[in-house]
């Protein structure tokens, strides 16, 4: 279904049925999808320059399923920035490819019934038994969305604040518990290597 940008009238379409927001490629307006159509939430500032090899449109495969990167959130915290790439999987799953300090983690929205511990119970080294895995907290970051591009399954408003708790197991499993406002979202996955994702349509990097 094609929409029309409320700000500039340009054609807007969503590649994923779970996407709720997108940045208009013509006028950089952040648009939110609701029952009435598209709502303009303001202009999205241009993302700071970086040397990421990924871009909207990059395709790959993981765990036997194919995915396409449809959008990105750039998150900042007191000690740096990282990218969260929205990977829309062919089987409908909401995947997130985190790109931080040279490491890559692929995780999925955890839709299990298990409720995560409250933030007050989490600290570096704390243990969390979930889905038969023993996770330990690596760090807790107060994060802020610096900007976004493409379509996303969340309303990624610039300045959206959250507390992000990263956990991992001894086997390379990875999890994030995100506390934003009154919402708590859990993502579970694994650390991955660039070479194992079979990536195509990567961003051209000058000199690399």
């Amino acid at each position: 279904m094609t929409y029309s940008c409320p700000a500039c009238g340009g054609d807007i379409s969503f590649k994923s049925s779970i996407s709720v927001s997108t940045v208009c490629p013509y006028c950089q307006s952040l648009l939110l999808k609701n029952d009435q159509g598209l709502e303009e939430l303001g202009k999205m500032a241009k993302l700071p320059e970086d040397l990421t090899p990924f871009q909207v449109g990059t395709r790959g495969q993981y765990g036997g399923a194919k995915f396409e990167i449809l959008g990105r959130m750039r998150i900042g915290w007191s000690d740096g920035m990282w990218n969260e790439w929205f990977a829309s999987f062919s089987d409908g799953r909401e995947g997130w490819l985190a790109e931080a300090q040279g490491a890559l983690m692929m995780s999925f929205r955890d839709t299990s019934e298990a409720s995560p511990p409250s933030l007050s119970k989490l600290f570096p080294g704390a243990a969390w038994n979930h889905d038969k895995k023993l996770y330990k907290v690596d760090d807790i970051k107060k994060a802020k969305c610096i900007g976004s591009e493409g379509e996303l399954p969340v309303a990624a408003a610039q300045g959206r604040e959250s507390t992000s708790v990263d956990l991992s197991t001894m086997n390379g499993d990875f999890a994030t518990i995100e506390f934003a406002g009154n919402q708590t979202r859990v993502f579970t996955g694994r650390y991955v290597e660039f070479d194992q994702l079979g990536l195509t349509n990567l961003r051209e990097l000058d000199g690399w």
Partner: protein
Amino acid sequence: MAGEQTAGPAGSKAKVFNCTNCGAPLRVQALGQTLVVACASCASVIDAQDERHQVLSKGARLQAMPLIPIGTRGQFRGHLWEVIGYMVRYDKASDYDWREYLLFNPRQGFRWLTEADGHWSYVVPVHTKGQVLGDTATSLNQSYKLFHKGTAIVSQVIGEFYWRVKTGDAVQVQDFIRPPEVLSVEKTTDEQTWSLSTYVEPSEIATAFKVTQTMPWRKGVAPNQPGYTPEAHMRLWGYAGLFFFALLIIHLMTSPIRGTKAVYQYTNFLMPGEAIVPIVSEPFTLVGSPRVLSVRMEADVDNSWLAAELTLFDTKTGKGFEFEHGVEYYRGYEGGEHWSEGSQVREFSISSVPAGTYTLTMLPKTDTLTKPISYTITVKSGGVIWSNFFLGLLLLAVPPLVAMWRRHRQEKKRWSQSDFAPAVYQEDE
């Protein structure tokens, strides 16, 4: 890899700005990840994220330049890497220092090359972390032995880093070794970082990063320097064992099967007053491959001796092989004790005697006889030369023993720098 160039213009799309403190040009290659750039000229650490490029900290003015210059690119272990940062750290307790080079590849992330006492390692972050139990750490089913525990402090930084590093930063480190690897963990109050180092030959680094200067000389044995591994050592003893059996089989197969065979025997008496005449034997034939001939002389000498000049004649060539033989035996009773010296029997062997027909000429000799002496000369052919086999065994044992000694020496040197040396490798007080 598609898109990677080996000798491309270093950081052609790198962001450049001037040091806020001294104006020197600074580069940012890892855009989006680099947080600070440390100036090589004035040791100021500059904020790379914010346009204002504030000075965040300052280091000591005098700096050592990296062996591999910032910006150098090299093809290493399957990918193209660029050296973007250089750091010198030292151990708080011993003042011992080492150098670290931050490697960057936009697709692969970050790696490190470390150099200490001329020994190099390639360091990879380990996300599976490790589990520490006493003196051992395990990661991915491999166990590592504790080698070092201490505090690492940054003494110098040049170039880009993805965290806000400054001189004086301290972390608690623990190194666990399993040559050629080291599993390390660095702890600050909030987090733990695990990494795995693998020993690299200096020549591989020099080739990959085109280092033209002489690489630093290696001193001592590095904690993770591969030597003779325990597995290779076991294999060596295994080979020695196999050779033992092979040698035994070969020895038995190449030895005369029938053992010794008497080919000639002569018995006679020497009578007092009789003139001694040479005796020529009947010819005897030896067949087959060359062998040992043993000439056994027995005589009932009692406080006297009997010698003989013998010649082994090859009837075909007519050439003689001369040798002397003899027996002597003395005994007595003195101070309440019996004593004796010598023997009435003696064997003399000649080795490598080829097949042929021989005669033996004998000329006995002795002091003036007071009583008759009876004597027998027996020529025996062949016999298994067991001394050859034992010599072979001894030779085979030498390399494993040498390897054991060398390995012990190397491990002792390795552990001499550690406070956690296993008892067997500890320095003798």
